[in-house]
């Protein structure tokens, strides 16, 4: 089974990140998991990788409500390297409720491929892998 190189979790809630990391590791689908607590840290991280010519994360799980810089603002900043991101990275937005407003807004952003409910379950992750990475989990 092909493994992803890396997944970036962007969320300020420790419990959520713990859970997501657990699910990812249990499914054994990627080599590295990065965790950033807000949009600014996440963007600096990505920028650094980009400048050093290193590969960007295959999958970004992006929360909306975060301090310092929230999910929307992060996406705004990413527009500068939008081209590179679209080629290599899938961004998924995560939220606690199916707010139609947020969903509509996310559909307006190219980089965001889907919009799902927290918490991420193994089923959802399987679905994401098969849809965007063509990876079938045994």
């Amino acid at each position, binding site marked *: 089974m092909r493994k992803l190189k890396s997944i970036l979790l962007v969320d300020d*809630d420790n*419990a*959520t990140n713990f*859970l997501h990391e*657990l699910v990812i590791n249990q499914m054994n689908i990627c080599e590295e998991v990065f965790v950033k607590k807000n949009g600014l840290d996440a963007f600096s991280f990505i920028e650094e990788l980009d400048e050093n010519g290193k590969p960007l994360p295959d999958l970004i799980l992006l929360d909306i409500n975060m301090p310092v810089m929230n999910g929307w603002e992060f996406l705004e900043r990413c527009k500068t390297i939008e081209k590179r991101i679209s080629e290599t990275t899938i961004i998924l937005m995560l939220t*606690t*409720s199916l*707010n139609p407003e947020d969903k509509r807004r996310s559909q307006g952003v190219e980089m965001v491929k889907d919009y799902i409910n*927290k*918490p991420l379950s193994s089923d959802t992750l399987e679905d994401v892998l098969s849809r965007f990475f063509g990876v079938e989990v045994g």
Partner: protein
Amino acid sequence: MGATFFSGVNKLFTRSFIIGTCLLTILPCMLFLMGIDFSHHLHGINTEEIRESTSTDLNRYILINFAGAFIHLLLEWSAVIIAGATAVLAFVQYKVTGNPITAIIGVALLCAGSMDAFHALAAINLIDSVADNKDFIPFTWAISRMFNAVILLIGVVTFLLKKRYNRKEGNQKSKNIQILSFTIFLVAIAYLLVIYCAQSAVLPQTMFPDSLITRPYDLFPLVVFVVMGIWLLPRFYKYERNVFSFALMWSMVPAVVTQAHMAFGSSDIYDAHFNISHALKAVSYLVPFVGIVMDYIFRYREEIVRIEELKLAHIKLEQKTKEQEQFTYIASHDLQEPVRTVISFSELLEKQYVGQLDDKAAKYLFFINEASVRMSELIKGLLDYSCIGAEKKMETFDCNDVIGGLRKDLHLVIEESNTVLNISSLPTIQGYKVEVRLLLQNLITNAIKFKKKDVSPVIDISCDSKLGYWQFEIKDNGIGIAEVHTERIFSIFQRLHSRDDYAGTGIGLAHCQKIVDLHNGEIWVDSKINEGAAFCFTIKKEE
């Protein structure tokens, strides 16, 4: 009636009104004392002079001679018109406010005006009298003044007696009958008086030029007016606090002075005090007229202010409701995240520590999980409640289609429970389609959920067309609801059964209530324990 009469603006009005009335009343007397001559004595026609004048001169001569009669007619007729106009306005006000006393006063004024008209027409011989004008004019004046005083007295006294003995007012029909009988009574008396005056060859003498009291018949109305002005009308005003009764009270000032000028001053027809009295009589009708016109103006202004206030209150209410809904939404939205975390980790604990937890720990964990799930459902219910109607769209739709759609969505539940849905032909209505669908869905699922133990649910859905609204009924044969609970079940989170017996958050009917409120309707239930329930709701028909 005129509850804001004594606000700041109106204090100015009342003061000016009183001062104006009093000034106008003593003005003629002042002018008289300063030497202005108000008299127009009948010079008498000199046949010699007539023979020697040309025809134009003759016309002038005749007209000058009749100046007194003309002035008299003008003054009287002005009074009659004003009384008539006041009566009309009073009747209109009665129609609008339903206050019978306004109509009674109107009738009294109209009758008094009619007597004055009779007196005026008689004075210029348009109504022919048997007796001589020299007696006729003063006598009819005296009669009409007494009539005026008495009918006002009767009207006001009747009102005060009614108040004292606390008679109930009664409905429109009985009020109309009372007013009509009062009118007939007055008209009958007036008519009899008129006949008597016109047909009597000899009328009592009313003028006594050499005594102090030159016209004693005018004393009786004077006393009545004084009594009305000092005692009865102020009491009347205490009960009927409006501009009209206020003006009526103050109209006694010119009325009394009218009588005084006649009773003590006038010794001949068309002399100064005679004319002054007639002018003041017109003033005493003018005062209530101004009163009723001001009443209309004040009311109109009040209406405008009230409408503005209502508009503002409405806007504020809408704002508050919106704020509250936003608050509920945000609160429940933010509450979900920690609840979700609790659920996730308690599930993790259960999964990862299977077998490692003793019975007690397992039980504690189970309760934690169960409660968190319930909390999550409650929050979701609250969230949904706050969202109801947020994106409502008014459309015209066929309710049968809605039911058809629901049948499909609920077909699993319907089959499992062997539910029978009997739908009578439902109308096409105007409303919020999505919300109405949810409303019907909630009621149907409730009917299925609360079925009797071994009885398949039978649900009858029908709709009645009523005046201005549709009335829907969803009737079931389930376990029913005790009558004491039929109101509170529409409140949020209200449940009548333990969670062991029936699942659910108790928010379904609160949703229904909110949706029905959106449509300006009502929702209620007719039910008895074990006898099923009939849920009814109304939706307003569009014009």
